[in-house]
């Protein structure tokens, strides 16, 4: 039991700073938002391990969910096409796809 629990904690503690670094350093805004949502949910797991389920609830709902949705909305308004990665990914690489314009 101790090994698994210890491994769980160490893994969380090791990955979270790395993820935080990625969120801050990435140039692609959309990628940053997606990583931020993942970061919030992992953070909520940390609160769970610290025996604070109420804080975990708040972190998941406000930190990841609500803030994530607001950030996505903001991104839509400022136009995510300006950022590097999102723009290039939107262009179909070869010929028109099966998508029909709706």
């Amino acid at each position, binding site marked *: *039991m101790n090994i*698994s*629990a210890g*491994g*769980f904690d160490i*893994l*969380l503690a090791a*990955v979270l700073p790395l*993820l935080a670094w*990625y969120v801050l350093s990435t140039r692609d805004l*959309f*990628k940053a*938002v*997606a*990583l931020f*949502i*993942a970061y919030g*949910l*992992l953070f*909520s*797991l940390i609160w*769970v391990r610290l*025996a604070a*389920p*109420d804080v*975990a*609830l708040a972190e*998941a*709902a406000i930190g*990841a*969910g609500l803030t*994530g*949705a607001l950030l*996505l*909305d903001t*991104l*839509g*308004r400022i136009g*995510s*096409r300006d950022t590097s*990665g*999102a723009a290039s*990914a*939107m262009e179909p690489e070869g010929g028109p796809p099966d*998508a029909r*314009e*709706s």
Partner: protein
Amino acid sequence: MDGLYLGVALFLLLNILLGMVRVLRGPSPADRMLAAQLFGTTGVAILLLLAEALAAPALRDVALVFALLGGLTVVAFVRRAWSPPTQVNKE
């Protein structure tokens, strides 16, 4: 049994971290949004296991929130963030 619960929970956490590679690599925004879904389902499973192992029933409510938030972020993504060039913004 608690050892089994924690072991499976650890395995699922490793699974999420492996899935994060897809978020980092993309290539499209839709690929990255799959992370929300990954966390929605896998996070719920982890929390249910921890609730049993740590005898903390409140974690089931956290799992409930996880389940709802995955859907919420995906809706926000589809309706707001990702307005494809072919589609005229009708807002």
